[in-house]
């Protein structure tokens, strides 16, 4: 309710206003998006996750140009001491057994890991929205086929199936890893969208829009879909994190991203052999994965709270 109106009503009923007009009462009416943004920002932990992610993106994508560590594949073996070098101003994360700059590799690997996480999230969400919308809107046989397909995907242990597909189908480039991960990522989004469509499709506003001549596709994507926006955004954020983990697991076993591409997962796979001599080769990419996924989870949960319409306005 508009706060300035409230003040007017009380001042008419009684001669003296009982409510003092504080700055909080006369503040401007906020838009929906603004309210959500304000709620999100007030959640310090989620905000911290978001800030970390911004810094991480800057680190991975601009870092190589700013710091000059842009040669992840160059072997710095001119001096013997540069093999397994400990962290130093020249190599902040040290070097590996053939003298590669781990700082540059962390940034290059991060680019691949983040692109795979984001890319597979996008493909999964688009697939999920499409499949869920058609199943929920049309129901009947399309819905039945979809639900059986989901059952089959859910019945087989995900990792095992993903391993088989990656070992046989993938050419181990980021693009094919994105596509493979997306094959399994769409189910949650599809179910969210489907249930929203089933709940909304008989509502009056849909009938009204149909009466003035809106076609199915317009009804589906302009009128009904926005209702599911909140859960989809939350699901998408959490999906980035779980997809980054999936990519790292695949790459760790050698079925995901393979050289010449670096990814945090295959850096751990490579460093695993030197765990007893130079644990940093494993710990640095591992910590980067951990912190990235943690931040996406925190941001996702923060968004869930901010978007929750039942949460009282603060």
């Amino acid at each position: 309710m508009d706060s300035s109106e409230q003040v007017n009503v009380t001042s008419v009923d009684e001669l003296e206003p009982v409510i003092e007009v504080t700055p909080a009462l006369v503040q401007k009416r906020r838009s929906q998006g603004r309210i959500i943004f304000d709620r999100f920002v007030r959640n310090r932990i989620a905000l911290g996750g978001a800030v970390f992610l911004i810094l991480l993106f800057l680190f991975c994508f601009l870092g190589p140009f700013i710091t000059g560590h842009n040669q992840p594949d160059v072997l710095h073996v001119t001096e013997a001491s540069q093999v397994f070098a400990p962290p130093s101003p020249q190599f902040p994360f040290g070097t590996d057994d053939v003298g590669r700059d781990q700082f540059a590799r962390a940034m290059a690997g991060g680019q691949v890991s983040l692109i795979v996480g984001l890319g597979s999230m996008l493909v999964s969400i688009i697939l999920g929205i499409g499949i869920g919308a058609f199943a929920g809107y049309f129901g009947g046989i399309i819905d039945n086929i979809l639900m059986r397909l989901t059952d089959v995907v859910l019945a087989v242990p995900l990792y095992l199936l993903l391993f088989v597909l990656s070992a046989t189908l993938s050419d181990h480039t980021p693009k094919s890893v994105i596509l493979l991960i997306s094959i399994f990522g769409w189910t949650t989004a599809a179910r969210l969208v489907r249930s929203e469509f089933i709940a909304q499709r008989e509502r009056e506003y849909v009938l009204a829009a149909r009466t003035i001549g809106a076609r199915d596709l317009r009804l589906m994507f302009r009128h009904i879909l926005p209702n599911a926006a909140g859960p989809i955004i939350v699901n998408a954020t959490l999906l980035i994190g779980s997809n980054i983990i999936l990519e790292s697991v695949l790459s760790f076993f050698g079925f995901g991203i393979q050289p010449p591409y670096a990814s945090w997962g295959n850096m751990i796979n490579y460093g695993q052999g030197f765990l007893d001599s130079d644990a940093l080769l494993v710990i640095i990419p591992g910590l980067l994965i951990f912190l990235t996924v943690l931040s996406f989870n925190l941001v996702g949960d923060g968004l869930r709270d901010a978007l929750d319409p039942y949460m009282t306005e603060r």
Partner: protein
Amino acid sequence: MGRYIIRRLLQAIPLLFLVSVAMFGLIHLLPGGPVGVFLNPRLSAAGRAAIEQRFGLDQPLPIQYLKWIWGALQGDFGFSFVTNQPVLTVLGQRFPPTLELFTTALVLALILAILLGTISAIRQGTVTDYVVTTLSYFGISMPIFFLGLLLQELFGIVLHWLPVSGIATAGVTFDPFNALWDQFNHLLLPMLVLATSFLAGWSRYMRSSMIEVRKQDYIRTARAKGASTRTVLWRHAIRNALIPLITVVAIDFGAVAGGAAITENVFAWPGMGQLFISSLESRDYPVLLSMLVLGAVFVVAANLLADILYAVVDPRIRYS
């Protein structure tokens, strides 16, 4: 109840049929599938035809499927390309270690999840709650293989407290008690790693369902009739709070199996997960196919078990 179980079992048949068709098709149609393994370029045409005929690979795919599923239903999953033993024998050798790791980790994760979830729910908003919540966030965000490597580094390489791989110390014969102790030491790290990765998510479910249950009227009624806090918690609250957790655990069964596969490979634990990766590397398709299909049977059975457990935990739920 008996009727309900029978109906659910009947419903599982078409699903498992679909899964087996999908997996069989997948394995056989993929480039480099079973036919590809035999397509050694140096093999003469006659030799190739002989091998194809021997393994029935020259027949149309639907016929091959029917033969395979007919055998599988009778417990004959074919022969491993690598060891030439029946698939079931190969799987049987690898089953006990996996069962040991899987059940101990599952029980540990469940007990800790129920305890931690309950504690942080009844201490909602206190330091204890924040510590548990923070740790569970860490657990959810930690890739399972990285946690494994970290613990190997810490307990094996830095502290020298625990063995980092295998199921028992090789080449040493212990008396029965020390053999058991030796095996327990080997089990400890993989079990902790596998349990941690699921404990985190499950304790969060337990916490939120416990908070929800504690607001219910029957809890207030129980308190009003004079039951002590402890009785209310153990007899009334926990039982009801367990219901959502059972669903989550059942859904996660496939993921736990996948997690066990990863853990086994990090710790060189000689179970089915290690067999799976090595079969994949050597393209041992009969073994892979059987593991995928048996994995699906396992997940479907776990879901059915969860639905039956509902009725045990919550007498209000009756199936007909």
